[in-house]
């Protein structure tokens, strides 16, 4: 049995009085795309940050590529790419410099970095903006740049928080196609969050519902009406919560 690329077991995290996550389990296998869906404040970003070691869990355990996230070193992190909430914000750097720097910080040598930077610029269709400062880009192009910085080193694990945010319909299609190809051909484990249920239904192998910091099980991406199933699950959880109170 292979170890999961990402694993959270009974993870909880509180911010002051706010219980951001409670007893959440998650497992993403190599070659699998798992989507986290939920309303604003459901805990999607918090769970992703815990998986990437950006936040510490109050209780529970988090593993990445079979290693506890707190003890993961360069060998593990060099195989991970991520984009959490906002694309890179160094407004003074050009598109090329941003992607180049992201690759260099993942311990790639200069010549490999140059090659992968050029390939990634083409892959994300950023050639026209290659030497433009990040601060001068539209929101959609900044989002594409953010995805480029996450994937430039060809990671085995990708954690992307709402990757299709601000992208035009063509951009959404291309990102979806790219992630699907990475998962199928390179066995990359992909965890994405999204508000767009139709979109994740077309891309994900599994859809996990988070609501008020709790996992509400999974939805079938091939189901007839994913949106209806999602709201039914959320309403049921709210009714149950109200009844318990």
């Amino acid at each position, binding site marked *: 049995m292979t170890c999961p690329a990402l694993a959270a077991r009974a993870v909880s995290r509180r911010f002051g009085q706010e219980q951001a996550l409670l007893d959440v389990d998650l497992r993403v296998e190599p070659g699998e795309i798992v989507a986290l869906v939920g309303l604003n404040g459901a805990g999607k970003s918090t769970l992703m940050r815990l998986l990437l070691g950006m936040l510490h869990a109050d209780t529970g355990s988090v593993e990445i590529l079979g290693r506890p996230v707190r003890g993961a070193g360069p060998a593990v992190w060099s195989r991970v790419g991520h984009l959490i909430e906002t694309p890179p*914000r160094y407004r003074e750097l050009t598109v090329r410099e941003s992607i180049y720097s992201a690759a260099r910080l993942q311990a790639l040598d200069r010549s490999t970095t140059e090659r992968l930077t050029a390939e990634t610029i083409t892959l994300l269709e950023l050639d026209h903006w290659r030497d433009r400062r990040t601060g001068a880009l539209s929101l959609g192009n900044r989002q594409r740049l953010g995805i480029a910085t996450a994937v430039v080193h060809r990671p085995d694990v990708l954690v992307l928080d709402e990757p299709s945010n601000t992208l035009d319909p063509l951009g959404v299609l291309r990102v979806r196609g790219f992630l699907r190809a990475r998962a199928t051909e390179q066995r990359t484990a992909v965890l994405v969050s999204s508000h767009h249920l139709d979109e994740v239904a077309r891309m994900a192998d599994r859809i996990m519902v988070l609501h008020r910091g709790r996992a509400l099980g999974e939805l079938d991406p091939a189901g007839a009406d994913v949106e209806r199933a999602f709201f039914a699950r959320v309403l049921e959880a709210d009714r149950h919560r109200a009844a318990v109170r």
Partner: protein
Amino acid sequence: MRAAVEFELIKAGRAPVFRWGAASVVLGVPGISVLFFVLARSGRTSPAVAKAMTLLTDMSLAGLVGTAGQVLTVGMLMAAGIAASWSFGREFVDDAVPALFALATSRSSLVGAKFLVLTGWAAATTITTVVVVLLAGLALGLPLTPAALAVALQATAAGLLSAVLAWPLALVASCRRGYLAGFVALILVVVLTQLLTATGAGSWFPYAAPSLWMGMGGAEAAAKVSATQLALAPLVSAAAVAATIAWWGHAEAR
């Protein structure tokens, strides 16, 4: 570490705070010093001339460089304080912190690289300023003497000591997650230094020792500044670097 330094160099090369900070010191310190020197040499009597005379020990190149050294200690603390606060605080203000996590390059390397680049920039700025002051003195017709070169070395050391004393502001900017806290702390440090220097209790205060050593409190006070008192500056700086690295090692990207 090499990748982290390369990354920080790219950012610093594009950052106006480094360019303008260096330009202000490299042009401002010689400008003020030469102005004081010319005023003092004019022989006129005015409050400005009287003030210039208090800063100048003698009307030689050594005197000019000594005056520049005094101004340089204040200028480098201010410029390095702003640069350090901005360098660390901007990561939070620009929402760039999550991108510094989950990388093959550790956060301790990233923080170390920031300090390395800041120190290199401070050294280049200090040395260039002292060289410009020497050239300005030669242009004024002052002869280059061994005494002037000795004071130039002392001014370079004092400027560097003042610059590295700004590194604790990086910790303040990190802990408070923004550069404004660093700027406020810098103002407080400058005010406190002035107060302690004025009361004569400054030489054990690391932020006052370099200025006093350059003669800001007069020749008698300068002679009393000991090597131990000056050594407190790199100790404070090293402690700040270690504490900042430790803070980033345990920090969360909220």
